[in-house]
C-alpha cells in the first residue's frame, strides 16, 4: 500500500476542491477509507502540494501509420531533440513527432497517465497496436476512423442500419479500437476523386449518401452499441472560413445525440477579408453551450513547430498547396485517407494568430468545463509538451493579455479575447485535463481518485507560474506505482491498451467476408488484430 | 581488346529460385554467373552464346557466361549476387547505396 498524505486534493469527479486528503493506493487501485492499513505502507508527504488524478488526453496522435510517416518525414524534427538512453530507459528522438518510448516518458513526466490515439484506419490498426506495445507507462486506446467507410456508406445508402451497427461492432473488435472516429464524413472519399464535401447535404460520390446521414447513423449506432465514448467527430470544412457555420449546423444535425467534437479550434472560423480567417468561437461556443449532449476538445494552437497529420486527405492537400513544401498523402482502401504537412505557427502570421485566439476564446466562452477537454490535437496545433503553457494561458489572464499583445495586429483587431477575463481555477484545470475527458471517454476508473479508481495520480508543487507548476510534477503514480519523481522518470512500466468489444450478430461476418473479396487486398481472416497481439490490455465494457 | 559497357544488376526469377536452394547450390551459382548482352554487341565483341567473358571494373573483375538478352547495345545485365558484386565499388555517394546499376564495365573474352 502507498499513501499520498496531506496534499490538497483536486478531484472534481468526487466534488473535492482543494481539500486536504490522504490518498491510499493498493494493487493499482485507490483504496476505500475502510480498507486503509497504513501499517508498512510507503508514504509520500504531500503537505502543501496539489494532488490530482493522472492526466487524461482525449485526443492526440502518438502512434500508428500516420504518426510514423510523420517521424520518417522529419529527421530535422528529431535532430537536437534527442534523449540519451539511461538505465533501463530507451533513448529516443523527436520534438513534434517523438519516438514511442519518448512519447510515453514525456506524457508521464507531465503527469499524464492516459492518452487516446485519435485516428487509426482499421486496416492499419495492427500497426497502431504494435507501436502501443512500445509506448510505455500510459494507458491508451485507439479511435477507429469510419466516416468514409465503404461498407458502412453502402449500408446507410441501402437503409440497412442494423447491418451498419453490427459492422461497426465487428470493426471495433477487429481493430481492437476504443471508439468511433469520424473524419470529414464523405469528404475523404470524394478526395479519392479529387474532390471534397462542403455542405452537410453534399453527396458522396458513388454512394449517394451525405455527411449528415453518416453523422446521424454513426450517432445512432454508438448509442445502440452503448460504447463508453461517443462518436468522436472531426467535421467538414476544417480550417476553412465557413467551418464555424458548418460546425453549428453539424451540432444541429446531431439532433440531441451524444457526440464529441474534436479540436474545435480548427472548425470555428468565419471568413475575413481575402484569405483571412476570423474567429467564430462566439457562435460555436453558443451552440455548444445549448447542446448538453456534446463534449468537445479544443486543439489549442501553440506557436512553434508542428506536424499536421489527419485522415482528412483533401484538407492536407489544400494545406500543402498553401504552404508549399513536403506533403504525404495516404489513401486507405475502402476506409479512409490521410495526409501530413509540417508547419510552423508564428505569431507574426495573421491566420496563425487567429487560430491561437480562437482556441482560447472557445475555452473561455464554453461555460461548462466538464464538456471541454484540453488538447492541442498533438502534433497538429502544437506539441503536447506545451500543455502547461496552455494551462497558464487559461489560469492567468495577465499572461494571456501579454501574449495577445504579441500576435499579429490583423488578428488583434476586433478580437473578442481581450474582453474575456475568465480565469480557470485549479479545480477547472483538474476538470479539463482529467475528470472531464475521462467522463467523456466513459472511463469510469480514470480521471478521479475515488475508491476503486485506477491509482493514477499526479502531485504538483503549487507555483505562481502555472506553466512551471504543471511542467514538472513532484510525483506521478501509475497503477499505484511511482513513475516520476521531481519531473524525472523512476520507472517505466507498461500501461494497458483499452479497447471495447461490443456484441454483434455474427451473421454479418459473411457479408463482410464478401466485401473483402470484392474490395480488399488483405484476407478477411488476416485482418483482425488478435488479443494476443496486444499485450497488457483491458476491455472496457459497453452499456448495451 | 576490351569494349566498354554499362552494367546493371538485378533480380531474376532464376536467381530468386536458386536462392532458396542455398547460395552454394549449383542453380544459384549458375543463375548468378551469367551476363546478358545484346546480339548486336555479341557480334561486335565477337562472342557466342555460352562463351565465357571477363568483366572488369575499377572495383574488380569476374568471369561470366554470356547469354543473349533483350538489351539495347552497350548495356549488360548480370543477376544480383556475390558474383556481380565483385564488380561493384563501395562508393555510395553519401547515400549508403552503391552503384548497382549503371556501372561502367569493360568486357574481354575470358
Amino acid at each position, binding site marked *: 500500500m502507498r499513501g499520498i498524505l496531506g496534499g490538497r486534493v483536486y478531484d472534481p469527479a468526487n466534488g473535492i476542491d482543494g481539500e486536504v486528503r490522504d490518498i491510499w493506493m493498493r494493487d493499482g487501485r485507490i483504496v476505500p477509507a475502510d480498507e486503509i492499513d497504513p501499517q508498512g505502507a510507503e508514504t509520500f508527504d504531500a503537505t502543501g502540494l496539489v494532488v490530482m488524478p493522472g492526466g487524461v488526453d482525449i485526443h492526440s496522435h502518438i502512434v500508428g501509420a500516420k504518426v510514423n510517416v510523420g517521424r520518417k518525414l522529419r529527421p530535422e524534427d*528529431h535532430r537536437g531533440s534527442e534523449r540519451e538512453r539511461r538505465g533501463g530507459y530507451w533513448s529516443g528522438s523527436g520534438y513534434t513527432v517523438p519516438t514511442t518510448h519518448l512519447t510515453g516518458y514525456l506524457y508521464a513526466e507531465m503527469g499524464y497517465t492516459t492518452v487516446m490515439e485519435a485516428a487509426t484506419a482499421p486496416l492499419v490498426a495492427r500497426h497502431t497496436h504494435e507501436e502501443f506495445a512500445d509506448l510505455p507507462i500510459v494507458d491508451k486506446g485507439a479511435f477507429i476512423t469510419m466516416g468514409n467507410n465503404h461498407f458502412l456508406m453502402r449500408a446507410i445508402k441501402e437503409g440497412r442500419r442494423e447491418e451498419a451497427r453490427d459492422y461497426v461492432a465487428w470493426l471495433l473488435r477487429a481493430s481492437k479500437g476504443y471508439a468511433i472516429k469520424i473524419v470529414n464524413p464523405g469528404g475523404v472519399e470524394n478526395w479519392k476523386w479529387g474532390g471534397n464535401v462542403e455542405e452537410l447535404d453534399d453527396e458522396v460520390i458513388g454512394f449517394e449518401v451525405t455527411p449528415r446521414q453518416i453523422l446521424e447513423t454513426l450517432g445512432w449506432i454508438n448509442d445502440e452499441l452503448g460504447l463508453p465514448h461517443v462518436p468522436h467527430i472531426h467535421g467538414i470544412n476544417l480550417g476553412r472560413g465557413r467551418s464555424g457555420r458548418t460546425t453549428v449546423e453539424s451540432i444541429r444535425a446531431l439532433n440531441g445525440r451524444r457526440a464529441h467534437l474534436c479540436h474545435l479550434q480548427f472548425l470555428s472560423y468565419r471568413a475575413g477579408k481575402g484569405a483571412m480567417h476570423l474567429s467564430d468561437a462566439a457562435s460555436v461556443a453558443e451552440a455548444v453551450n445549448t447542446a448538453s449532449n456534446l463534449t468537445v476538445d479544443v486543439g489549442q494552437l501553440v506557436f512553434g513547430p508542428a506536424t499536421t497529420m489527419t485522415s482528412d486527405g483533401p484538407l492536407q492537400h489544400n494545406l500543402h498547396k498553401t504552404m508549399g513544401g513536403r506533403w504525404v498523402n495516404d489513401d486507405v482502401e475502402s476506409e479512409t485517407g490521410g495526409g501530413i504537412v509540417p508547419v510552423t505557427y508564428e505569431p507574426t502570421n495573421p491566420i496563425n494568430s487567429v487560430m491561437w485566439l480562437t482556441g482560447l476564446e472557445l475555452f473561455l466562452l464554453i461555460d461548462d468545463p466538464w464538456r471541454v477537454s484540453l488538447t492541442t490535437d498533438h502534433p497538429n496545433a502544437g506539441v503536447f509538451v506545451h500543455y502547461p503553457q496552455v494551462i497558464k494561458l487559461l489560469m492567468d489572464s495577465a499572461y494571456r493579455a501579454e501574449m495577445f499583445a504579441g500576435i499579429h495586429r490583423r488578428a488583434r483587431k476586433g478580437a473578442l479575447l481581450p474582453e474575456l477575463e475568465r480565469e480557470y481555477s485549479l479545480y477547472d484545470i483538474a476538470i479539463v485535463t482529467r475528470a472531464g475527458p475521462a467522463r467523456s471517454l466513459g472511463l469510469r476508473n480514470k480521471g478521479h481518485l475515488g475508491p476503486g479508481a485506477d491509482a493514477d495520480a499526479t502531485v504538483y508543487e503549487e507555483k505562481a507560474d502555472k506553466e512551471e507548476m504543471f511542467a514538472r510534477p513532484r510525483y506521478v503514480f501509475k497503477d499505484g506505482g511511482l513513475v516520476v519523481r521531481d519531473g524525472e522518470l523512476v520507472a517505466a512500466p507498461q500501461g494497458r491498451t483499452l479497447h471495447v468489444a461490443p456484441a454483434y450478430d455474427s451473421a454479418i461476418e459473411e457479408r463482410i467476408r464478401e466485401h473483402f473479396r470484392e474490395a480488399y487486398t*488483405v484476407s478477411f481472416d488476416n485482418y483482425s488484430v488478435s488479443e494476443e497481439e496486444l499485450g497488457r490490455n483491458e476491455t472496457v465494457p459497453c452499456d448495451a | 581488346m576490351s569494349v566498354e559497357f554499362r552494367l546493371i544488376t538485378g533480380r531474376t526469377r532464376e536467381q530468386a529460385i536458386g536462392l532458396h536452394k*542455398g*547460395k*552454394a547450390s549449383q542453380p544459384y551459382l549458375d543463375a548468378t554467373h551469367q551476363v546478358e548482352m545484346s546480339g548486336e554487341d555479341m557480334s561486335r565483341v565477337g562472342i557466342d552464346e555460352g562463351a565465357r567473358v571477363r568483366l572488369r571494373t575499377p572495383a574488380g573483375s569476374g568471369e561470366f557466361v554470356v547469354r543473349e538478352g533483350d538489351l539495347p547495345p552497350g548495356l549488360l545485365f548480370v543477376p544480383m549476387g556475390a558474383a556481380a558484386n*565483385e564488380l561493384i565499388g563501395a562508393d*555510395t555517394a553519401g547515400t549508403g547505396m552503391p552503384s548497382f546499376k549503371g556501372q561502367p564495365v569493360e568486357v574481354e573474352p575470358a
Partner: protein
Amino acid sequence: MTTHEDVTCTFCGCLCDDISVEVEDGDIAAVKRVCANGRGVFAEHCSDARRPTVGGREVDFDEAIAEAARILDQADSPLIYGLSSSATEGQRKAVELADVLGAVVDTTSSVCHGPTGLALQEIGEPSCTLGEVRNRADLIVFWGCNPSASHVRHFGRYSVTAKGTLTPRGRQDRTVYVADVRPTGTSKTADHFLQLRVGSDYEVLSTLRLLVRGESVSAEEVGGVSVAELGELAERMKSCRFGVAFMGMGLTMSAGRNVNVAELFSLVAELNDHTRFSVIPMRGHGNVAGSDQVLTWLSGYPFAVSYARGYPQFGPGEFTAVDMLARGEADAALILASDPVAHFPRAAAERLAAIPTIVLDPCENLTAGVARVVFPTATYGVDAVGTAYRMDNVAIRLRAVLPTERPTDEQVLEAIIQALPKRAAQLEAVK
C-alpha cells in the same frame, strides 16, 4: 494432413496472404497460390533442429549467446545489419540491442529503398494502399522495376490484371506504362514502353514534370525517349481517374539515386493538382517495410542509425552498412536475416570476414560462411508467428504452419541483451 489457409508468403513486399499450405507428417506437402519466387519460402524452408555454431563448431545455445555477447561487448563500433527478413518482433529486439549496446543499426533498405526514404524526407510521399490500386487505378506506371521477375503476383493481386470495384474488367480498365532501360517481362505486358537510356531517369522525369506543368521543352528527345511520347504520357497522367506509379531499383541504384526518386515523387505530388495520383515503392524483402517502420518508431529514422552516443543519430552514407564496412569503421557485426556477403560490394563484404560477425538466419548463407557465431533461427511465417509490413505499409500477421525447436530472432536477441554487461553504468561513470 492439415491445410492452413490465408498463410502469408514473406518472400517479397507483396506479402500475399492467401497462400494455402498443406502440412503432412510435420512437413510441408503442398503450397497453393504461391508464385515461383515464393515457393521456396515454404518448399525449401529450413526448420531442422540445428544448434548454433561458434567458429564452425556446434555449441549449446548458452555458449553461443555468451560468445555473441562477448564479441559485442568488446567491440568499440559494432554494426547490426539486416532485419528485413525478420518479423517486427525480431526487428524490435535488434533495435533494442543497438540501443543498449550503442551500436549502429542499418537495414537492407540502405541497399534497396534507402534512397527512396531520403526522397520522402525531401518531398513527402503521396501514396495509397494496394487496394486503392486494385479498385481505382486506371493508369499504372512501372518505373525502373520489373515485378514480373521480382513481385510475381503483383499484377494479379494488386495492379495490372486485378479486378476491383471501379475496375471490374481488370486489365481492360487500365492503361499500363513501363519505363525501363531494357525490355522485361513487365514491359511486355504494358501498353506503352518507354525505353530509357541507362542513367537518364532523372532527365526523363524532369522533362515529364515540365510537360505536366505546361512548360515548353525544346529538345525532341530526352534520355532515349521522344518528347512527343512523354507529352502523351503527361496528358494521360493529368487526365486519368486515379494513377499510380510503382518505382524500384532502377531509380534507387543508378546515378542520381534519391534525387531520381525525389523527382518522381515531385511529379506525382504535382499531378494531384489535376487528378489523383500515388506512388508506391516496390519493396523487395518480405518485411523490409517493417524494418523501416520499427526503426522509425523506435529511433525516429528509417535506416542508417547510430546509437553510439547513447541516442539515435541518422547518417545515410555515414551509418549505412556498406560505408561502415568498406571504410573499416565497424569492428564487429551482427547480421540479422540477411546476407550482405552475397549482396554487398566486395570491399564491404570482405570486411565482414575480417571482423567477428554474428549471424542469425534460418538458412545457411554466404555471410554465415564467414561468421564467428551462427544462430539457425526459426522462420517467421513458416514456423514462427510474427508481423510483417507489406510494401504499402499494411501490417500483416504471419502464421506458423510448422512447429520448430529453433529459437526466434527475438529470443536470440533478447538472450544476447540479457547476457551483456550493463552499458548504462559505463555511461554514468564517465559523465
